[in-house]
């Protein structure tokens, strides 16, 4: 276990370093001059040159990279060109919204997928199974932004139960939660459809195994056999997919926050790209990548917690 954790941590750190190099490189070969963007085309050459020096744009590449990484490690991502405030301030302000959205989306995805997937497996080959798989197939085929629009039309425009978009801020908790319901559903329905299928096939695989027969022979109820014996053993593929899905949920917030007009990181990255706000974009891409890498790391550790047989290996 100790060696396993050591190896995985090492891999985790190396991946983060690689990601930071790639992000930095991509941002630096992009066309466009930040100084020109900030000062506008009317600026004099002298002013532009001064600003470039001030921003460190004339330094050699490796110096700029190390400055950026060093700053990022201490929480200093530079100053946003378009908002004229520190990028870290922008992030801290918007992170809670995006994290709530991603986490609640993930939780709803897991609840939906496990209930439907296990239910479908338990009724294998019967109408319940077909029904769930049919709906899941539609869920997989539908893009989340389109589903968002449908949800808004139904629940906000026609029924007027929930707001169509916008965010009142955390000082109004009820309003904040209400405005998160539709975006969460839009994220979870699509991801849940994928995960339900994985859950079903993984559970079906486990249900054929001998120890499930032992559990039945011990007189346990169907529900107990399903949830206590089948599900834990079906968990490894499910956790793998959940890890991948969390990554797509985090990036999915970019689309969803724009559709629902939510002031989160997803919307911020969209605005920053439009404004060529290099420090902000760079920080956000790095942050999103770090979240994805971290989740994958957690998934790797979860495998070992789920299956004691993996503890001795590696």
């Amino acid at each position, binding site marked *: 276990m100790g060696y396993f954790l050591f190896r995985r941590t090492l891999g985790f750190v190396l991946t983060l370093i690689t990601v930071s190099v790639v992000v930095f490189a991509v941002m630096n070969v992009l066309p466009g001059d930040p100084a020109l963007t900030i000062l506008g085309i009317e600026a004099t050459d002298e002013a532009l040159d001064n600003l470039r020096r001030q921003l460190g744009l004339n330094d050699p590449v490796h110096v700029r990279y190390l400055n950026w990484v060093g700053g990022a490690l201490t929480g200093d991502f530079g100053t946003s060109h378009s908002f004229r405030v520190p990028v870290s301030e922008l992030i801290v302000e918007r992170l809670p919204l995006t994290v709530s959205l991603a986490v609640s989306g993930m939780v709803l995805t897991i609840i939906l997928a496990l209930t439907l997937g296990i239910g479908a497996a338990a009724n294998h080959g019967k109408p319940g199974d077909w029904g769930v798989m049919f709906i899941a197939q539609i869920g997989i085929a539908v893009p989340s932004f389109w589903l968002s629009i449908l949800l808004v039309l139904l629940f906000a425009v026609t029924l007027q139960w929930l707001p169509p978009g916008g965010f009142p801020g955390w000082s109004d908790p009820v309003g904040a939660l209400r405005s998160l319901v539709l975006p969460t559903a839009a994220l979870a329905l699509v991801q849940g459809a994928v995960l339900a299928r994985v859950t079903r096939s993984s559970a079906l695989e486990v249900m054929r*195994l*001998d*120890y499930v*027969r*032992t*559990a*039945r*022979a*011990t*007189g*346990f*109820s*169907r529900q*107990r056999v399903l949830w*206590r*014996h089948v599900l*834990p*053993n079906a968990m490894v593929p499910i956790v793998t997919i959940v890890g991948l899905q969390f990554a797509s949920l985090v990036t999915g917030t970019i689309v969803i926050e724009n559709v629902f007009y939510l002031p989160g990181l997803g919307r911020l990255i969209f605005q920053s790209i439009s404004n060529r706000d290099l420090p902000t974009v760079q920080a956000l891409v790095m942050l999103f990548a770090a979240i994805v890498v971290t989740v994958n790391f957690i998934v790797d550790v979860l495998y070992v917690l*789920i*299956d*004691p*047989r993996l503890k001795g290996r590696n």
Partner: protein
Amino acid sequence: MQLDRVSVAFGAAVALREACLQIEPGTRLGIVGESGCGKSMLGLCLMGMIPDAGKVSGSIRLNGKELAGAPEHVWRRHRARDVAMIFQEPMAALNPLKRIGDTVMEPLEVHEGLSRSAARARALALFDEVGIPDPDSRLRQYPHEISGGQRQRVLIALALACNPSLLVADEPTTALDANVALRIIDLLVRLSETRNMALVFISHDLAAVARATQQIAVMYGGDIVERGPTAQVLGAPRHPYTIGLLGARPGLDNRGRGPDGRRKRLVTIPGTVPPLFELPAGCRFSGRCTREIASCALQRPQPLALGAGQVAACHLLGQAHAGAGAS
């Protein structure tokens, strides 16, 4: 437990045909036959665990209560408490994610409502009873950390947890080393005696069945072809299939060279077991039987009492019987 003309059919394939058996409390019954002869199906019948696609007919009575065709939730109340079962592959039959102690404690907590500590005490006693050394530290181990023989003992402890009056053991020793297998067999016999628990021992290993049981049923193609006291049936088999099965045993006396100087060969039954849906309508063994007569393939032989509790279903025996009666 009493089985009266129990059949199991999967569509056109008949896996079990009109099986009649009586299992008295505390007795040990062996069921032998080749793979696919229906012996496991018979075992599953006793647990009500025939796959959904199988159709069960006939009568299965437990302490006088009719259970054939009973829904799952009725059967479930009898599993573990009245009838328990252990299976062939101890490697695969334990949940790999549960500590073996938790596995054995689960039915005690769920079915008997014991507290965790009471269940733990009972699990320790059970481990001790089935001969698992150092039960205290074993409780915390996972299945992959113990040997095949120990796993089978854990499964036996699990099966015994709720004090069943009948234990069905489906090939419990097939996957084990010979000496480990012997000890498991002796353990099952001892448990049956000390607990006055009936044992149904399903195996293709005649030596194991001879060691473990008092009664035996020989199966072929879904039929019970011969049954009776174990010593009687194995000592003086009457059905051609039983005779063939006993002849096909590799042993010390069919090694080396015979009196004619030729290398002795294992006597085998000619042909192979046909697939279930291609079995002959009459005697299932017709087509492979060396002493076949005209009626064999067409007409189903009825079980015939041969004295001393021995019963066999064969047309030849019927003829001999009828002939003896006439003279």
